[in-house]
């Protein structure tokens, strides 16, 4: 798989349910970030987790990082219609200045 691949590619759930998205990567990373993109708009930063952290929370978001498996998950609890968007993970490697984005998960919340 390529650096930063999310699964599933698309996810539809009922409002109020929890949504889980996964990301896998290949390199040794400095940190991993999650971004949201509403249709046709820019990327909005959600949360950053560093390589020495295992779990992080921000409001209804929970991110985990397993560096041994080179994977991360994003959990959105109690989903709302406004959460409908594409979600991307992005990895930052040591020693360079770029983020490598994944393929994204398109999340649809059904009211």
């Amino acid at each position, binding site marked *: 798989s390529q650096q*930063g691949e999310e699964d599933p590619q698309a996810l539809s759930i009922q409002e109020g349910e929890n949504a889980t998205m996964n990301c896998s990567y290949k390199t040794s990373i*400095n*940190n991993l*970030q999650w*971004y949201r993109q509403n249709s046709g*708009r*820019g*990327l*909005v*930063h959600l949360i*950053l987790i560093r390589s020495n952290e295992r779990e992080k929370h921000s409001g209804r978001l929970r991110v985990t990082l397993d560096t041994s498996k080179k994977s991360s998950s994003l959990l959105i609890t109690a989903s709302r219609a406004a959460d409908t968007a594409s979600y*991307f993970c*992005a990895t*930052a490697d040591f020693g*360079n*200045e*770029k*983020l*490598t*984005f*994944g*393929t*994204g998960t398109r999340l649809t919340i059904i009211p």
Partner: protein
Amino acid sequence: EPEVTQTPSHQVTQMGQEVILRCVPISNHLYFYWYRQILGQKVEFLVSFYNNEISEKSEIFDDQFSVERPDGSNFTLKIRSTKLEDSAMYFCASSPSGGTNEKLFFGSGTQLSVL
């Protein structure tokens, strides 16, 4: 909250023409970036800029591309002779002081269509 602003939101150009995409990063930020997203594909890194010079660039960022910070507030991406495959959404981003050790703030993008 401070925002990264990009102009224009849409740009249509003929193949072979030069285009300049403009960005105003957040005022106290030190790191600046351009990314692009071809329709239906991943967001791809183009270039990073720090201390008035390119700090890193990707293979995509060939001699047809250049960046400039002409006046301390604007950050521009120039494509010298556009190709059909340059059609994409171009995003500018900035970060305060830690580069990719911190979150990036993205603009809303410029949709470039090369005909």
